[in-house]
């Protein structure tokens, strides 16, 4: 599933998700930290209240003045979050209490039982002037402290408060955190949308170039970039690969279209080019000329001087053909000692002129097969021009030129015959 999603969207999701996850973790830590600080803060406020009241309560407790103690505790009604306040003497006997009007009797009873249990259980702690007991749970928090008179404990004061204020602050903080998280998430997604382009743009550019190369087979294409990162290396590797392909393509193309010995076009390539040239000549209404030629007594050269000399003769022949043909003519080796010249815009006169240049050129060429030793070869040529017979198929034209060549051979060689 994930593999089907494009890198672009993967990056958006990954960048956004990573940042959001980091945000959620930091938010959770912040919320927990706020819970701790708020619970400490709430308990600190309750401690302060207990300190103030216990200071005033000392005299009332010292003289067992329940009325005064009750009057002092009654002032707690100003704080609606105080649920219960209890003053007990040193024997644990209740001296005074304040109970919030909203506190259910069952809760009051439970609080009082818990208080009595705490007074018994934490007697050691409460035996010190600085000792205190504090507890906080989901719904309530408690501070219980001893009241000393003349260095002796004379009773305890316990105040129990609800935790609504604390939770309200935490709720407010959580809401702010959620709002901040959502806002940040949107910003992060927007940012990751922008940031992903840093990674995907070079990839997309690479893909586009690869597609273009695949379509046009233009292996000369070069990817340029001012980057200095891994994409620069990727581009360089890609460019090097294209250059390799281009070079190999050229080599293969050359192998497929040229004759390895002479460097001239081979038969197959010559036929392809000839069809193209013929089509163009027909379209333009121009003639095309074909000169078929064959070295005279070439077998004897091979027999007398060996094949390397024969190859040398073929290479020299090719040079003469290229020198004699016009720039826009095609020279090909058909095989063995047979050659072909296709003359673009080949009027009969032009073809004859080319053929005669070839014949004379080769006749006058001394081929030095070793220092101080040279030989001469001649060639017979069959010349054809479509000037007076336009529209004939290639096979007919070649057959005509070939037939003329045969006649030139029969006529004594070292001459050309017009088909």
């Amino acid at each position, binding site marked *: 599933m994930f593999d089907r999603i494009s890198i672009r969207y993967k990056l958006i999701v990954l960048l956004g998700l990573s940042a959001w996850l980091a945000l959620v973790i930091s938010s959770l830590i912040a919320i927990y930290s706020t819970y701790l600080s708020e619970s400490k803060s709430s308990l600190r406020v309750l401690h302060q209240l207990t300190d103030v009241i216990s200071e*005033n309560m000392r*005299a*009332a407790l010292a*003289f067992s*003045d329940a*009325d*005064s103690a009750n009057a002092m505790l009654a002032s707690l009604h100003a704080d609606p979050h105080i649920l219960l306040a209890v003053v007990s003497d040193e024997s644990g006997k209740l001296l005074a209490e304040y109970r919030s009007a909203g506190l259910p009797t069952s809760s009051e009873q439970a609080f009082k039982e818990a208080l009595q249990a705490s007074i018994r259980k934490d007697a050691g702690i409460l035996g010190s002037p600085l000792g205190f007991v504090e507890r906080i749970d989901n719904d309530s928090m408690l501070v219980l402290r001893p009241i000393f*008179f003349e260095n002796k404990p004379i009773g305890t004061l316990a105040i129990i408060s609800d935790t609504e204020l604390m939770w309200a602050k935490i709720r407010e903080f959580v809401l702010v955190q959620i709002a901040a998280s959502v806002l940040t998430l949107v910003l992060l997604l927007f940012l990751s949308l922008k940031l992903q382009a840093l990674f995907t743009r070079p990839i997309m550019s690479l893909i586009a170039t690869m597609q273009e190369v695949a379509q046009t087979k233009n292996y000369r294409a070069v990817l340029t970039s001012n980057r200095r990162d891994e994409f620069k290396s990727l581009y360089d590797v890609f460019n090097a690969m294209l250059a390799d392909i281009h070079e190999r393509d050229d080599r293969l193309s050359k192998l497929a279209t040229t004759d390895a010995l002479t460097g001239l076009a081979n038969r197959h390539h010559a036929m392809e080019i000839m069809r193209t040239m013929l089509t163009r000549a027909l379209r333009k209404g121009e003639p095309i000329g074909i000169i078929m030629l064959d070295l005279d007594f070439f077998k004897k050269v091979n027999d007398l001087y060996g094949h390397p000399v024969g190859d040398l003769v073929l290479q020299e022949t090719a040079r003469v053909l290229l020198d004699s043909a016009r720039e826009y003519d095609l020279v090909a080796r058909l095989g063995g000692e047979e050659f072909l010249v296709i003359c673009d815009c080949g009027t009969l006169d032009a073809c004859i002129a080319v053929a005669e240049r070839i014949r004379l050129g080769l006749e006058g060429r001394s081929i030095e097969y070793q220092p101080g030793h040279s030989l001469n070869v001649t060639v017979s040529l069959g010349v054809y021009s479509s000037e007076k017979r336009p529209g004939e198929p290639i096979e007919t034209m070649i057959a005509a030129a070939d037939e003329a060549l045969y006649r030139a051979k029969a006529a004594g060689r070292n001459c050309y015959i017009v088909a």
Partner: protein
Amino acid sequence: MLLLMVGLLSLLQAPWVYAGDEERKLEAVFIGRFASYIDWPDKDRERERFVITLLDDNPFGKLLDDLYRDKRIHNKPIELRYANKLEQVGETDVLFITLRNAAARLAATEFAHKNGILTISEAKGFAESGGIIQLDFVEQKTRIKINHAAAVKSGLKIGAPLLSIATVLRGDKP
């Protein structure tokens, strides 16, 4: 039969006796605690002992001796004295008065004013008649009445916490 009646009578009287004992114990404790909230003039602080004197009857029996033995008030060891007559009262810090006669009580308070002594009594109308602290026990609850003017007249300063839980007379009226 007589023994049975005496026994029944004892049982009937027991709660009253118990309540009275509790009140006495509290009263005994309160004498020392009152002292903690009182500042005496400096000249009287030169004594090495903190002296509590009972004038007339001793309703506490051995209670005060048991309670204040080896204890300290204002960082001084406590000395308990028992006087039958005002003339027997020497230098003292606290004078607990159990005199039934109003004129005698008045004389005692006058003596106390002159000598910077804290006077305490549970006699009705004691505070109104010039005494400094009057203790009442009503339905097992403590009532403290303080004549602040009398304290000032005696050169005593009473701590605000004690005043805050007491009924304070300013002059002769609360």
